[in-house]
C-alpha cells in the first residue's frame, strides 16, 4: 500500500543539518516528497510504501543530527501526489518566527580528525566547522540563520566550499560558517598596540606562551586571556594585570586524561567535559596536581574545560601544553571583550600579545560553568553552549521580558511555552555590563522577532535593571520580590504549578518590609507568596561594607547573641584596628548605617570570620565557600541548636548558635568540627521548620533556590532530610540557583500576574 504522510517537527531543527538529514533518509528509503521550514519548525511530506514510511519515521528520530532537539513530532495522513523525486524547499522570509536557534557548539570529532589530518584540505585550518559543530549564536545578526545574516557574510565561499554547501550528502550542506584556507577567516598575531607581528600566528602564540607572556586569544564568544598554567610567574602576572587577586582561574587541558591528573574526574564529570557545550567543570582538585597554588588559592575545587574551537585544539596539538589558563579577557569583573579594537583598547596593560582573527563576534558569550555532585548537575554560570536553548514553561502566558537582578545578571524573554534565558552578563554596576545588558535584550528581541509588552524586574529600587525597566515607555512593569523570583525559577524549570514551600537562601535581596532578606522560607505559587519563616534579623554594620568585611557580621551576630566581642578578646579580631572594632560595634548597637538582614549568606560569613577563616573577602561568597570547604570532619555527629520562635512567621534564632560556637572556640575545637556542627545544625533546623510548615499547610513540594545552594552540603543534606520526611524536593539544573536564574522566575511570575485572561 502506498501512502503519503505529513510530518511536523518542532524544536531546534534549523541550522543543525535537519533538512539534509531528512533528504538523506528519503533518498535511502526511496521516498518522494519534500521538506521545508515553517513557522513552527520543519514540515516533511513523504510518500511511499507503508512499511518504508514507518522505517523512515523511526530513523527520523533515532538518527537525528547531534545538535537537533526535537520538541514535538506529529504525523497526519494526506492524499498521495504524483512525482518521484524528493526536494528541499529553501526558507522563505517570515517562516522562521518560532524556530529555535542553536547555541555555539564545540568542534565535532569529524572536523577534529580533518583538522589534524595532513592529507585533508583543511589540515590546520583554525575555522573548520560543519553542520554538527561551530559557531551559531555568537555570529548571528538576525534570523533566519542563513549566511548573509551572520558575520560570515563578509566571506564569499570558494568553489569547493560552495559545492559542499550545496550537496545534501555533505556534512557541510548548508553549514553557514563553512570556510577553508582559500576563502575563510584568517588568524593574525598582534602586539599589545595591535600591530601585526610576522610569522605563523599559531607558532608565535605558542612560543610567546611558552616564554611566559600573556596572550589574548579570540574565541567563540569573546577573547580569553591565556598563560601557560604551569608557570607560576606568568599566572601571578596575569592576576596582577587583570586585578583579580584570589578568585580561582579556569584551566583548559588537552583531554580527560590530563584533567584526571589535576582533579578527581567522575563519570558524570567526564560526560560534562566532553559534551558539545564544553562548559568549565568544577571538580575537586588533587593535592598533587603540580599546578601553581596561585591558580586557585585556598580553593578545594578547580575549574577545568577541554578545547572547543579549532584554534584551541591546534594550540594543544602543536604546543603540547599540559594546561593553559583561559580566563575571560576583561579588567576586574567587566564583560568579556569581543571586538578586535575594543580588546586592544580595554586590555591595554594586561595582554602582551593578541591571537586575533577577522571573523567578527556579534554577541558576547562567556564560558559556562557547571558542577556535578552526586549525580546532580548545577549550573553556576549559563552562557556559551546553553544559550539560546529555551527552558520549557507553561503554555498560554503572555510574553514577558524579565531583567533579572544586579549581580551575575542575565535577562529572560518568554514567547509561548519557551523561556529564553540570555547569556551571563555580569555585575550591572559596571558601565560595560550595563551596555551589554541592553545589547542582550535587543539581541533577544531581534532573534526572536518579539517585543513583549510586560517587563518584570526586581523589587529593589536601586538595581540598575529596575531603573532601566521603569524608564521604558508603553509597557507594563511588574515588580517581583527577589526570593519569590528564586523560588518561581525553581518551580518553572521543574514545571510545578501549585503551591510549594520555597526555601530561598542567598546573600541579599530586597524584602517587602524594606529590609535585606536572604534566609527565607516562603509558601509560594506563581501569583504570590507568604513569608513562613526567616532567619532572625541582625544589623548589617555599614551595609554593603559588611559584605566585603565578614568580620562585621561576626560582630553583629555576637552582639545580637548578647556577647561583647571586645571583652572576649577573640582571636579573629586580632587584625582589626581597635578603633574600627569599637566603631562597628556601635554602628550595630545604635543601628547607624546598619540595615537589618535575615541573610543566610551573611550568617555563613559571620561563622567563617568568627572561627578565623577570613575577615575580608575579595569576591562574592568567598568566606562561605571556605567555610563549606573546611566542613570535612566526617566522624563528627554533634550539631548546634537554633532556637525557633513560633508564630505566624517563624523566626529562626541564631543567639544560641553563637553561644555554642564561642564555647567551642574556648575549648579549642577545630574549624572543621565547628563548620560541620554548624552545617548539621542549620540543616536539621531548616528541615524541622519545613516539616512543620508542611504539616500545617499540607504542601508536600519543596523548592530549594538561592545562591547558598551552591553549597553542596546544604543542598544534598537538606534534600536527604526532607525526603526522609516524605517530602518532594526540587532543585535547579537548567539555570543557576543564584541570581543568574532570577530572570526566569521573574518572567514566570509576571506571566501569571499579567495574564488578563486569568481571574
Amino acid at each position, binding site marked *: 500500500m502506498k501512502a503519503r504522510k505529513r510530518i511536523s517537527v518542532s524544536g531546534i531543527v534549523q541550522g543543525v543539518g535537519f533538512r539534509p538529514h531528512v533528504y538523506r533518509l528519503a533518498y535511502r528509503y526511496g521516498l518522494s516528497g519534500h521538506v521545508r521550514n515553517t513557522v513552527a519548525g520543519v514540515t516533511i511530506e513523504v510518500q511511499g510504501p507503508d512499511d518504508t514510511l514507518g522505517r523512515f519515521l523511526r530513523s527520523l528520530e533515532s538518527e537525528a543530527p547531534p545538535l537537533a532537539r526535537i520538541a514535538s513530532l506529529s504525523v497526519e495522513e494526506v492524499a498521495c501526489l504524483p512525482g518521484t523525486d524528493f526536494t528541499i524547499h529553501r526558507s522563505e522570509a517570515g517562516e522562521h518566527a518560532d524556530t529555535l536557534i542553536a547555541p555555539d557548539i564545540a568542534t565535532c570529532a569529524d572536523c577534529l580528525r580533518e583538522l589534524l589530518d595532513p592529507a585533508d584540505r583543511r589540515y590546520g585550518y583554525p575555522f573548520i566547522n560543519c553542520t554538527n559543530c561551530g559557531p551559531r549564536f555568537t555570529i548571528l545578526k538576525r534570523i533566519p540563520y542563513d549566511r548573509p545574516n551572520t558575520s560570515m557574510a563578509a566571506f564569499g565561499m570558494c568553489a569547493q566550499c560552495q559545492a559542499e554547501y550545496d550537496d545534501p550528502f555533505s556534512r557541510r550542506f548548508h553549514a553557514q560558517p563553512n570556510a577553508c584556507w582559500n576563502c575563510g577567516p584568517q588568524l593574525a598575531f598582534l602586539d599589545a598596540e595591535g600591530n601585526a607581528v610576522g610569522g605563523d600566528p599559531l607558532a608565535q602564540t605558542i612560543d610567546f606562551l611558552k616564554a611566559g607572556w600573556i596572550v589574548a586569544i579570540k574565541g567563540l564568544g569573546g577573547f580569553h586571556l591565556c598563560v601557560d598554567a604551569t608557570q607560576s610567574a606568568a599566572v601571578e602576572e596575569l592576576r596582577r594585570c587583570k586585578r583579580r587577586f584570589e578568585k580561582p582561574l579556569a584551566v583548559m587541558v588537552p583531554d580527560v586524561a590530563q584533567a584526571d591528573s589535576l582533579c578527581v574526574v567522575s563519570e558524570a564529570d567526564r560526560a560534562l567535559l566532553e559534551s558539545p557545550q564544553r562548559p568549565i567543570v568544577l571538580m575537586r582538585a588533587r593535592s598533587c596536581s603540580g599546578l601553581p597554588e596561585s591558580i586557585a588559592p585556598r580553593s578545594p575545587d578547580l575549574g577545568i574545560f577541554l578545547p572547543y574551537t579549532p584554534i584551541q585544539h591546534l594550540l594543544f596539538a602543536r604546543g603540547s601544553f599540559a594546561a593553559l589558563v583561559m580566563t575571560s579577557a576583561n579588567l*576586574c569583573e567587566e564583560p568579556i571583550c569581543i571586538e578586535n579594537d575594543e580588546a586592544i583598547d580595554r586590555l591595554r596593560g594586561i595582554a602582551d600579545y593578541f591571537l586575533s582573527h577577522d571573523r567578527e563576534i556579534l554577541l558576547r558569550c562567556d564560558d559556562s560553568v557547571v558542577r556535578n555532585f552526586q549525580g546532580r548537575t548545577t549550573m553556576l554560570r549559563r552562557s556559551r553552549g546553553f544559550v539560546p536553548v529555551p527552558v520549557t514553561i507553561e503554555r498560554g502566558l503572555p510574553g514577558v521580558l524579565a531583567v533579572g537582578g544586579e549581580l551575575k545578571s542575565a535577562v529572560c524573554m518568554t514567547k509561548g511555552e519557551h523561556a529564553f534565558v540570555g547569556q551571563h552578563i555580569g555585575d550591572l554596576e559596571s558601565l560595560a555590563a550595563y551596555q551589554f545588558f541592553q545589547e542582550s535584550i535587543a539581541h533577544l528581541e531581534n532573534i526572536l522577532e518579539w517585543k513583549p509588552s510586560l517587563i518584570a524586574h526586581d523589587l529593589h529600587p536601586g538595581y*540598575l535593571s529596575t531603573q532601566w525597566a521603569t524608564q521604558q515607555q508603553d509597557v507594563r512593569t511588574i515588580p517581583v520580590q527577589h526570593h519569590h523570583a528564586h523560588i518561581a525559577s525553581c518551580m518553572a524549570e521543574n514545571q510545578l504549578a501549585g503551591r510549594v514551600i520555597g526555601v530561598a537562601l542567598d546573600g541579599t535581596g530586597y524584602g517587602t518590609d524594606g529590609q535585606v532578606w536572604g534566609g527565607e522560607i516562603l509558601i509560594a505559587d506563581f501569583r504570590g507568596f507568604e513569608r513562613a519563616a526567616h532567619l532572625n534579623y541582625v544589623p548589617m554594620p555599614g*551595609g554593603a561594607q559588611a559584605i566585603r568585611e565578614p568580620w562585621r557580621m561576626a560582630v553583629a551576630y555576637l552582639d545580637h547573641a548578647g556577647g561583647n566581642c571586645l571583652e572576649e578578646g577573640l582571636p579573629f579580631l586580632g587584625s582589626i584596628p581597635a578603633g574600627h572594632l569599637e566603631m562597628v560595634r556601635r554602628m550595630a548597637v545604635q543601628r547607624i548605617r546598619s*540595615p537589618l538582614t535575615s541573610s543566610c549568606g551573611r550568617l555563613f560569613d559571620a561563622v567563617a570570620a568568627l572561627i578565623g577563616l577570613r575577615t575580608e573577602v575579595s569576591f*562574592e561568597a568567598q568566606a562561605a565557600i571556605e567555610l563549606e570547604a573546611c566542613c570535612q570532619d566526617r566522624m563528627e555527629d554533634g550539631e548546634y541548636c537554633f532556637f525557633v520562635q513560633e508564630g505566624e512567621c517563624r523566626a529562626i534564632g541564631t543567639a544560641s548558635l553563637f553561644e555554642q560556637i564561642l564555647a567551642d572556640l574556648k575549648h579549642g575545637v577545630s574549624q572543621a568540627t565547628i563548620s560541620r556542627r554548624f552545617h548539621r545544625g542549620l540543616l536539621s533546623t531548616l528541615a524541622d521548620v519545613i516539616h512543620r510548615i508542611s504539616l500545617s499547610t499540607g504542601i508536600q513540594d519543596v523548592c530549594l533556590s538561592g545562591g547558598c545552594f551552591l553549597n553542596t552540603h546544604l543542598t544534598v543534606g537538606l534534600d536527604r532530610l526532607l525526603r526522609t520526611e516524605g517530602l518532594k524536593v526540587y532543585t535547579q539544573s537548567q539555570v543557576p540557583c543564584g541570581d543568574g536564574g532570577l530572570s526566569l522566575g521573574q518572567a514566570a511570575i509576571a506571566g501569571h500576574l499579567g495574564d488578563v485572561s486569568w481571574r
Partner: protein
Amino acid sequence: MGHGGGGRLSADLFRNVFLPAFGNSILGRADDQAFLEIGGARLAFTTDSFVVKPLFFRGGDIGSLAVHGTVNDLAVGGATPLFLSAAFILEEGFPLECLRRIVSSMREAAQRASVQIVTGDTKVVEKGSCDGMFINTAGIGIVDTHLHLSADQARPGDVVLLSGPIGDHGIAILAEREGLSFEADIVSDTAPLHSLVADLLATGATIRCMRDPTRGGVASSCNEIAQTSGVGIQLEEKAIPLREEVRGACELLGLDPLYIANEGKLLAICAPEDAERLLAAMQRHPQGAGASRIGSITSANSGLLTMRTALGATRIVDMLANDPLPRIC
C-alpha cells in the same frame, strides 16, 4: 523620608508634584535658583529650609549653614548675593541661649558673605512638633544679563572642575549626631562661595554651569547635569580630592564619598580650552586651594554619570536610591 534626601526621590517629587502644580518656564529650569528680569535688571532668587540635626557641629551650626546655603545657591548661578530673609520655626521651650548663639553665628556669616538679612519671621510650635528649630532663608542677588549658567549647558568635551576635598560636611554632621569619634577630627566645610565665584567669573572663562554639591553630593549634582544637558559625565576616581580621614570614615560607615553632602565646595563645568585657566584661578583662591580637574563631558552614555575607578574599571554612579541598602549579594 527619602524624598528630602536630594537624590532621585526628591527629583521625582519635583517632577511629579510641584512642577505640574506650579509649572512655569522659570520653575521648569529646575536649577538651584530662579532668574527674574525686572525693569532691565536681572535678579537671582532662591530659598532653602534648614532642618539639620544636630544644631551645632564641628565647623558650624544651623545658623551659618542657613546663610551659606542660600548665598551659595545664588552664587553658583553667577549672581552677587545681596539680601536674605530668615524665618525661624522654634519648638516651644527652645533655650534662648542657643537661639542667641545661632543668631550671632548668622550675623557673622552674613557679614562674611557681604549680604544683609533684611526681613524675617518667627513661629513657635508645640513641643514635639518640631525638633528644636528649623530655619528657612530666601535670598536675592543680582546677575550679569549676559551670563547664562545652567544645568542644560554642558556639552561634550567640556571639563569638570571641583574646588576641593569632598565629604567633610556630611561626615562631620553624622559624627556629631551619632556621637562617633574618628581618629582625626573631621570639620564641616560650610562656607560662602561668593568670592570664589566672583574670582572665576572675573577670568572671563567660558563657564557652562556651576553647582554646590550639597545633599546627594557630587554624584547627585553630576547626575542632574548629565540628565538635563543630555550628555554623559565621566569622572576619574584618582582625581577626586578626598581627605584621608574622610576616606577612612566613609569606609568604616560603608558610605560612598561621592554621595556625601558638602557645604562649601564648588563644581564647575567649563569649555575645555579654558579649563587650565579656570583651575588656576580656583587654586589661587584660598577656598579652592585643593581644586582639581575631576572629569569630562562625553557624548556617549547620555544621561549617565560614570567613574573610572582606581583599578581602571568604569562603573555607573547613579542617582542615590534608598541607601544604605546594599545592591551587592
